């Protein structure tokens, strides 16, 4: 299998000059193409920090992150933004769709930033919203959708740019059981059928149960990394 993400000796220290807080204490992690991985651990264990560093949203104090063998720590701010646009899909806890755009336009948006043609955008939007079960809601704005529907649009948006992998930070934190189950089914299906790589941070046992691989963080260090035989 191809290695998509390689995290090498990552350390992250906040307030290094006053009272240092060590969020990550030398993390090594390798994610292969097509993996469905959950990052778990208690609050403050460093899950979100690690996701942010992998996603190029935050910089490590030490160490490096290689995405498809490219060291993203060496990219400028503008290059990082372009890199995220082309290679990484994000799903946030609070959905974070653009409130003034419809579901269709939200999914289309990243492709528009990529300069894709209208025909290509239309076809992909149709496929993705169909895949997440929202073909009937394409013209609704976020405030006309339920939380679960919004998060499904967010997943479709994350996949619109055909990223190398999707990072999802607590994607089910605001969802009820039914919506969580639906969302997990959709992501598992996309992972299984289209070989899309997912990396979650989560507290949610329902998500952990569906993960193929579970990486546990505690106090900024990986304390276990195991395969989950019953995942997905």
């Amino acid at each position, binding site marked *: 299998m191809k290695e998509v993400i390689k995290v090498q000796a990552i350390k992250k220290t906040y307030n290094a000059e006053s009272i240092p807080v060590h969020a990550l204490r030398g993390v090594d992690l390798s994610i292969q193409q097509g993996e469905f991985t959950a990052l778990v651990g208690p609050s403050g264990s460093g899950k979100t920090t690690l996701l*942010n560093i992998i*996603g190029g*949203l*935050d910089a490590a104090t030490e160490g490096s992150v290689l995405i498809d063998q490219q060291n993203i720590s060496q990219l400028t*701010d*503008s290059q990082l*933004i*372009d890199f*995220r*646009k*082309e290679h990484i899909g*994000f799903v*946030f806890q*609070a959905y*974070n769709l*653009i*409130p*003034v*755009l419809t579901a269709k*336009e939200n999914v289309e*948006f*990243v492709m*528009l*930033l*990529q300069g894709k043609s209208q025909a290509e955008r239309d076809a992909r939007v149709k496929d993705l919203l169909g895949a997440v079960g929202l073909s009937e809601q394409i013209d609704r704005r976020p405030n006309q959708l339920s939380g679960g529907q919004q998060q499904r649009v967010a997943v479709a*948006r994350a996949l619109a*740019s055909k990223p190398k992998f999707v990072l999802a930070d607590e994607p089910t934190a605001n969802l009820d059981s039914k919506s969580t189950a639906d969302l997990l089914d959709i992501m598992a299906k996309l992972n299984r059928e289209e070989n899309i790589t997912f990396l979650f941070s989560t507290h949610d046992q329902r998500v952990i149960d569906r993960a193929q691989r579970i990486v546990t963080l505690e106090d900024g260090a990986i304390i276990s990394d195991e395969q989950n035989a019953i995942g997905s």
Partner: protein
Amino acid sequence: MILKIAWRNVWRNKRRTLITAAAIFFAVLFSVVAESFNRGIFDGMIDNTVRFYSGYGQVLKKGYWEERTLDKSFELSDSLSQQLLSIDGVDQLVPRLESFALASYGKITKSSMLVGIDPSKENQLTGLSKRVVKGAYLKADDQAILISEGLANKFKLDIQDTLVLISQGYHGVNAAGKYPVKGIVSFGSPELNATMVFLPLATAQWFYGAEGLLSTLVLDIENKSTAERAVAELKKTLNADDYELKDWKQMMPEIIEMKALKESSNKIMLLVLYLIVSFGIFGVIVMMTKERQYEFAVLLSIGMQRRTLSMITWLETVLLGVFGALIGIVASYAMMYYILLNPIKVTGDMAVAYEKFGIEPILLTSVDLDIFANQAITVFVITSLIALYPLNKIWKMKPVDAMRS
């Protein structure tokens, strides 16, 4: 898509947008109304003065403007006449010979301004015949005068009564004559009404001993914009050693100064007004930026470049301003145009003040496009400057910190 997002964002909070747009609307409306009335009134004043007497330009013998003596009179040669008439926009030349004279009737003697005119050309320029309130207008070969109503009242004289005129003529010659009153003319300006006496040009030249001479040659030009171009062209070609050319701005500096003074006080008032409105808009933009900090961070995270996001927020702010300005401009244009067609009549002391300047006591407005364009530009500049605030936040924003906060 950028424009679509910006436009929809403007309407995310309809009430806030409408309140902000209303503030801009009233600022624009007030500014346009103030500027439109100011320009309308002063343009009317200038136009009135120009049409009544001075014209948009005058050719004088060099030194006449300062000394005001008949010794600085000149003869209108064919070559000078051709040179002046060859300038595009100069329709005709209106000659005058003017000086002060003592006017006497019975036991009363008063100072007067005695002006020799070509009755026909003068009438085309100033419409003097329309001011005749009693008697008849002059003919070129008349040996008679037109006298202003105020002066006639002081003398208590009527048509066919004879006025004695005494003055100093060309090169110190004694000037004296008796002339019957052919007509009485009325002016709005009390000053003119109390001093003016008109003679046909040839009669005045004979009276002053200045055969064939003129003190002033008024250029009859249709309008202000043509006048500015024609005067500029003439200034290049006129023999500056013998003649001088005065345009309307030089001839009525007091009106120009008064207009500038009024414009300055208006500008200070509008500055205060726009400052208040600017702080209002700024408050809205600060609020909007704070509310959308998380959203901006998400957009940066999913791959929108800072410059694109900056463009969207700048557009939103400018669209908000332009929307308010646009409805303000439309409403104020309609209002000012209506008042231009149906002027407001001025009454009381204000009417007296207007008439003192020889102006019809009505409030004129101007609908010059630059008045409206200036407001659009002002709002555009203000909103563009205010938009620097969210732009600054976006350029300094770290997505992770913004999402965490």
